């Protein structure tokens, strides 16, 4: 259901994904499908301990099919640790992830040695023969016990202390979200091939985009970016976990160069669980100062992030985003947020769908419900009294919300959710709502639009897909502007040798940034077509009319795009689009029931209202919402990476790490409010993460409602809920 459709002829229409037929037929080509002559295979020897000193590594003399064993020492002078990207204003420690471990290993699963062999199975056989002597060191598992700060950030705006001194009520709460694994269906991987004659390193990566892989690989290898070509094949999901270069991919590159053979690293599921960066793992202590009438005056928060053993390129980004969004969608005049990113002996964290936004929404929205309970107010009413209602809105923490209609999202979500139902016998019921505001967009992307000989159009886009549906939405954007059938628009992306410059696919930014660049490139091409046609038709460019058949002069003479291309074969246009951040928003509501005898949580309905600005394709946008909700519900019901006191991951396979199935998906009522952003030509914000952001907070509030105000943190397992009901008794 779309409110206020702002669609054009092609955009705003629910076109089916044109990439699906190819994928469903099995014609897609993933990383592990890539075969090159002479391909060798990589397996890793990984640390079994969470924290230990490496005293000696003995490599086997021989093993069937063994080509080479590389250790950290072999990489000296060939590869540097991965670069660290610190958010603005944050202090980041110089503790990068080594490509292969040095003298100390700092998490179970850290790559210590790389084994290259004629097949992956033979590489694993040889890896078993590598002997690593470790002297155990004490592991730090809980961030609260860590002495090492990897990231520090402090943000403040407004008169915080004055507001707290003047407050009628101060409500406090402590909330946390566990570490989660992204578990994309396709794991990570890389195939590296080195052409010594041309000194060109080509690397295929299962990754989100070419740009960040290329930039980080150039830094690790100390090579000029021009001497590296990154190709992104079809990618079977990432959810943020393939945004940074994998250290193992850098090893594949070095191995290919050292051995003069192409090398493949196709990660397996076990490696993915122990070594791919994880998401969440954040806790916040939050205080809210209010008047007795329910006006929010100020917020103070201390956010502690379990960052793991090292700073990967993007490890510092999610907690910084959380900190910056701690005033949520509320007009709170003053705020002070302290962020501590602590080192623990676990795999590093990084972006996972939402990447700091679900944490902020969960912390803020839980606190708002707890505050309403304290004030004796309806939690919806407390929200209504404090929502940001005029834009642009500068938050006290320093970001400027560009656009939105938060009130409308809230009212629509309530309407779609309906009232809290009477529970079945033996169950208690709850309803919860949550709001969110999401930073999206920002930085720049670019595109090139080219008129082909047959009158079709090729778009070279700097952002590439890993499941989002760029081929469909970007074709719609270009087709709308060029008045052609979207089937006549061909998309090209994912090859750094061809791609125009850009940043990448993450943070719900592809349509807002990449799509806007496509729109501008298409506009530029349209202008060139019009000028050229005007010369040929001996008319003024502005006098030409343009429809699906081509360009027409006032005298009845016409030119189709194919005819134009035949005489003007070089028509193309480049565009670069840059903008500040845009801020999507939304309201979610969840209805839940809890079985009193077992503690099982049933989520019976989710209402999702997202304002991602102008929607290019409502079908794909709704798909994003549903997928995000599924992951958000998984986080509520079953998902959690668990480490024992020795720092060993005890949920490192699908036998222990449970994922939601279709059977657990409740009915979802999804709707869009379309408040266009003024910051880009499409009016588009971002929709990739809303479901994952809004759902945990809404379900958390619904659970607290069902439990009579008792606050628990996800995952809401049967045992946890049952225990809570035993302690407090059902209402």
């Amino acid at each position, binding site marked *: 259901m779309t409110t206020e459709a702002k669609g054009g002829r092609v955009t705003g229409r629910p076109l089916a994904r044109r990439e699906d037929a190819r994928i469903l037929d099995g014609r897609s080509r993933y990383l592990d499908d890539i075969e090159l002559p002479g391909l060798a295979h990589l397996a890793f020897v990984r640390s079994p301990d969470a924290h230990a000193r490496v005293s000696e590594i003995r490599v086997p003399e021989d093993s069937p099919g063994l080509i080479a064993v590389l250790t950290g020492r072999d990489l000296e002078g060939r590869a540097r640790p991965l670069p660290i990207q610190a958010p603005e204003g944050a202090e980041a420690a110089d503790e990068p992830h080594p490509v292969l471990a040095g003298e100390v290993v700092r998490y179970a699963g850290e790559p210590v040695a790389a084994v290259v062999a004629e097949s*992956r*199975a033979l590489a*694993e*056989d040889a890896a*078993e023969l590598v002997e690593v002597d470790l002297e155990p060191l004490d592991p730090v598992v809980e961030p609260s016990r860590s002495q090492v700060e990897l990231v520090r950030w402090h943000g403040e705006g407004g008169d915080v202390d004055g507001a707290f001194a003047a407050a009628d009520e101060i409500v406090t709460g402590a909330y946390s979200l566990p570490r989660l694994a992204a578990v994309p269906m396709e794991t990570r991987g890389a195939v590296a091939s080195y052409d010594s004659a041309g000194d060109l390193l080509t690397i295929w990566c299962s990754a989100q985009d070419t740009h960040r892989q290329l930039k980080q690989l150039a830094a690790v290898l100390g090579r000029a970016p021009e001497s590296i070509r990154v190709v992104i094949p079809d990618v079977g999901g990432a959810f943020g976990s393939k945004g940074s270069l994998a250290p193992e991919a850098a090893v594949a590159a070095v191995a290919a160069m050292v051995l003069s053979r192409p090398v493949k690293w196709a990660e*397996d*599921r*076990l490696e993915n669980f122990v070594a791919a960066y994880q998401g969440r793992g954040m806790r916040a202590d939050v205080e809210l100062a209010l008047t007795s009438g329910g006006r929010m005056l100020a917020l103070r928060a201390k956010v502690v992030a379990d960052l793991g053993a090292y700073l990967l390129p993007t490890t510092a980004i999610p907690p910084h985003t959380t900190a910056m969004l701690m005033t949520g969608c509320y007009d709170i005049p003053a705020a002070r947020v302290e962020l501590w990113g602590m080192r623990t002996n676990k795999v590093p964290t990084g972006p996972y769908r939402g990447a700091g936004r679900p944490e902020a929404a969960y912390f803020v929205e839980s606190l708002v419900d707890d505050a309403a309970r304290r004030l004796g107010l309806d939690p919806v009413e407390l929200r209504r009294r404090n929502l940001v209602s005029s834009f642009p809105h500068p938050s006290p923490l320093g970001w400027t919300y560009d656009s939105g209609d938060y009130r409308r999202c809230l009212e629509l979500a309530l309407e779609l959710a309906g009232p809290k139902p009477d529970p079945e016998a033996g169950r208690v019921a709850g309803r919860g709502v949550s709001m969110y505001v999401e930073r999206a967009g920002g930085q720049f992307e670019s595109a090139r639009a080219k008129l082909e000989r047959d009158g079709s159009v090729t778009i070279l886009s700097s952002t590439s897909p890993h499941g989002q549906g760029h081929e469909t939405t970007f074709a719609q954007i270009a087709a709308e502007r060029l008045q052609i059938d979207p089937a006549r628009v061909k998309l090209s992306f994912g090859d750094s040798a061809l791609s125009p410059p850009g940043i990448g696919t993450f943070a719900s930014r592809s349509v807002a940034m990449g799509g806007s660049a496509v729109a501008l490139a298409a506009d530029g091409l349209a202008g060139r077509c019009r000028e050229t046609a005007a010369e040929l038709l001996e008319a003024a460019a502005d006098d030409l009319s343009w429809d699906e058949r081509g360009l027409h002069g006032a005298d009845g003479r016409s030119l189709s795009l194919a005819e134009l291309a035949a005489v003007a074969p070089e028509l193309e246009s480049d565009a670069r689009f840059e903008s500040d951040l845009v801020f999507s928003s939304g309201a979610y509501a969840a209805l839940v029931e809890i079985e009193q*005898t*077992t*503690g*099982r949580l049933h989520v019976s309905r989710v209402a999702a209202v997202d304002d991602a600005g102008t929607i290019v394709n409502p079908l794909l946008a709704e798909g994003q919402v549903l997928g995000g909700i599924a992951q958000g519900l998984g986080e509520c*019901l*079953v998902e959690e990476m668990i480490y024992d006191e020795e720092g060993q991951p005890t949920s490192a*396979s699908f*036998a222990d790490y*449970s*994922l*939601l*199935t279709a*059977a*657990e998906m409740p009915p979802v009522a999804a709707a869009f409010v379309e408040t266009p952003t003024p910051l880009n030509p499409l009016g588009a914000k971002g929709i990739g993460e809303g479901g994952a952001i809004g759902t945990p907070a809404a379900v958390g509030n619904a659970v607290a409602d069902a439990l009579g105000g008792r606050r628990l943190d996800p995952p809401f*397992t*049967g*045992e946890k809920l*049952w*225990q809570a009901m*035993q302690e407090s008794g059902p209402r």
Partner: protein
Amino acid sequence: MKPAPFEYSVAATVEEALGLLGEDSRPLAGGQSLVPLLNFRLARPERLVDLNRLHELDYLRQDGERLRMGALTRQATVERSPLVAARWPLLAEAVRLVGHPAIRSRGTVGGSVAHADPTAELPLTFVALDARFHLRSPTAARTVEARDMFLGPLTTVLGADELLVEVELPPLPEGAGTGFAEFARTHGDFAVAGAAAVAAPAGRAAVAVLGADSIPLRCEEAERALGQEAPAPEVGELAAQLADGAHRRALLAELVRRAVERARS
């Protein structure tokens, strides 16, 4: 996650399979449990004996009042059997809870028993139904009662040179009702706890649970209470005493209650 090297033999007959089995060999049936163990290198047999060509062990038939299932019968075959649905509804109900459809189309009845996962539905069902397992070795054949089969997690009385060849189910008592209930994190996931109940006239009753121990257990006190027409929650409470941990006891009490209520309805 590639298995350590192993020899691979395909057996064409049961005799040939028996000749290949031994201390360092593992029989391969549907592979739904063994292959992951191989890939994790937790199982490292020197030789795999592939049973999948033993069509002689792939059958499901009525023999008088009894049901006989060859060990290689796929779980999906049991799931789709009108005979099982009509005469052994507890088995029909339980088999649907084994993993997902793709798993059941490969997974076998015998494999589930021989693997003896503490959370598996079929061993629980067979214990509740007083199944008998027919075992063969190169030199002998023997029959083991279901409740004597399981020794611990992934451990049964099967010797290294023995093969489970048949599962035999007696008929349900006249007028019996049955019920199965389990608690798993998600649909198709491993069960945290489960219960199977049989209630028949003249005090004939069976109650079996998984999740109380590392093997499926019969609950004699609960069975006596069920046979004496005790209320379902009371039967559940008696069965729950077998388990440790407050939540686990609560789960078992509830699951047995549900299974008993289904059996009586």
